[in-house]
């Protein structure tokens, strides 16, 4: 097929025996023309290049467009190639065959691999032939001469275990007579119920407790903690202030405070004056009647006019009784002064808004 170049130096048989396998390999690669083609030392028509393959047009083709798929690594025969490379090789072959059908307008392709000289291998380097075919191109070599079969069962029995062993699987135990597509359905594997998951490092789950727990056994020898110790306040809290002392101190400073306190509790002042300090200017009531003559008259008013529950306001008489605690009374007197001011403010704003709105709408 390809005329090999003149080989200048051939090692003798003795040297070959002494050489290590690496050196033998190097020698092979030196003599191998296809390794030179792969490296690029020899001119060739590259059609396809990959990380592990090269596609080159054959110089002496069987048909125009005859392509050789060469492996970049030096393998002699196909079984030397690892399985993933073979997978890749056949996929590329399929792609190139398709490219030939499209590009060269072929009507068919032949893919041909020769392992061994008896099979037609002419070069020591592994290659795959992809040959485009057309109707009437005259190639008869790929037509297979078929003969009658002999002893197929024997051959099957010899080859089957070997093939399964090579592919790493066990052969089935069915005999030839059984029909392959009527194999029994495998039994369904009922999965085990899931176990409670527990992360590593955690103590194992305890079984759940009984709904009615058993009565606790009497523990002997352990005294219960003393109650007094439990009732004592913790020492961290600050001392509670003595409110009575603070009140007495305040009374000394402010005498009015004492008067207000007595009026609210109902105690009468010795002076006879009203204990409530009320300014006479704020009152708008009519001048009070004479206190001596009109003591009986309020009692003689008809029933529908009199207000027996509420006593008429007499500033000079004793103040009405008020059963109200101290602090609240103080606060209620101060409060009515403040809210009217608050109410006045929003009213002004509302009126202002309305005026503005009216102006906007009407004019």
């Amino acid at each position, binding site marked *: *097929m390809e005329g090999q170049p003149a080989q200048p130096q051939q090692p003798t048989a003795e040297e070959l025996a002494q050489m290590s396998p690496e050196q033998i390999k190097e020698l092979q690669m030196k003599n191998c023309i296809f390794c030179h083609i792969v490296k690029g030392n020899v001119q060739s*028509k590259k*059609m*396809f290049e990959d990380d592990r393959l090269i596609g080159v*047009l*054959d110089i*002496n083709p*069987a*048909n*125009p*467009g005859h392509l050789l798929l060469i492996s970049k690594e030096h393998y002699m025969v196909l079984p030397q*190639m690892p*399985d993933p490379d*073979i*997978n*890749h090789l*056949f*996929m*590329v072959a*399929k*792609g*190139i*065959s*398709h*490219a*030939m059908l499209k*590009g060269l307008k072929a*009507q*068919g*392709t*032949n*893919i*041909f*691999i*020769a*392992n*061994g*000289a*008896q*099979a037609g291998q002419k070069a020591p380097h592994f290659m795959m032939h992809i040959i485009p*075919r057309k109707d009437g*191109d005259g190639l008869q*070599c*790929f037509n*297979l*001469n*078929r*003969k*009658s*079969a*002999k002893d*197929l069962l024997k*051959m*099957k029995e010899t*080859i*089957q275990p*070997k093939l399964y062993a*090579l592919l790493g699987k066990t052969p089935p135990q069915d005999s030839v007579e059984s*029909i*392959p597509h009527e194999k029994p359905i495998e039994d369904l594997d009922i999965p085990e119920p899931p176990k409670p998951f527990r992360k590593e490092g955690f103590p194992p789950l305890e079984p759940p407790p009984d709904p009615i727990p058993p009565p606790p056994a009497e523990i002997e020898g352990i005294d219960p903690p003393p109650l007094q110790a439990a009732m004592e306040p913790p020492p961290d809290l600050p001392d509670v202030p003595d409110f009575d002392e603070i009140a007495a101190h305040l009374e000394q400073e402010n005498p009015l405070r004492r008067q207000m306190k007595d009026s609210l509790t109902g105690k009468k002042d010795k002076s006879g004056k009203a204990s409530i300090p009320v300014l006479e200017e704020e009152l708008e009531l009519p001048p009070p009647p004479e206190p001596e003559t009109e003591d009986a008259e309020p009692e003689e008013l008809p029933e529908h006019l009199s207000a027996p529950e509420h006593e008429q306001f007499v500033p000079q008489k004793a103040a009405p009784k008020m059963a109200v605690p101290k602090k609240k009374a103080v606060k209620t007197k101060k409060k009515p002064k403040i809210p009217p001011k608050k109410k006045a403010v929003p009213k002004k704003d509302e009126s202002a808004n309305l005026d503005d709105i009216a102006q906007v709408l009407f004019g």
Partner: protein
Amino acid sequence: MISFIEQGYKEGTLPIVYEEDEIIVFLDPKPVSPGHMVVAPKQKYTILEEIPDWLMGRMGEIANKASTAAFETMGAKGTNIIVHNGIPAGQDNNHFVINVIPRFDNDGQDLFWAPKQLSEEEMSTIELSLKPQTDIVGEFEKKKPKDIPIEDDIPDPEELDEGENYMLKQLDRIP
């Protein structure tokens, strides 16, 4: 048209040497030489273009192993792996196969071809027409994982009888 391979596989008459999910290897009933094996996909594909990429790769691997098995057990001197793709290529039946043929002395089969001498012009035209097509060859289809079957208890409303079909029942409802 059912191929003889599919028919033989169903009936169980094929001498199957190896079986896988999608590929079978069996001994050819009309062999070229003793030990002639055929690697075929279970599904019928007519030509190479129909076969997915990953299937072709897998068939190639199995063909390689078959050739080594034949070489070691039958005592062959060499093996051939041949693919006929298309009638002009010599395809015998409409089921795509890869032939693995062990070779012995005096087979009666010569796979030699007379090399043709082509001129420079013809070579260049071939180069120009073929190169753009081969540049595209690169990515290959990978095997897709099988879908996990989901079992739903919900019946398809179209398959239900009229009495059970809730979609029809709701039309009869009077609001």
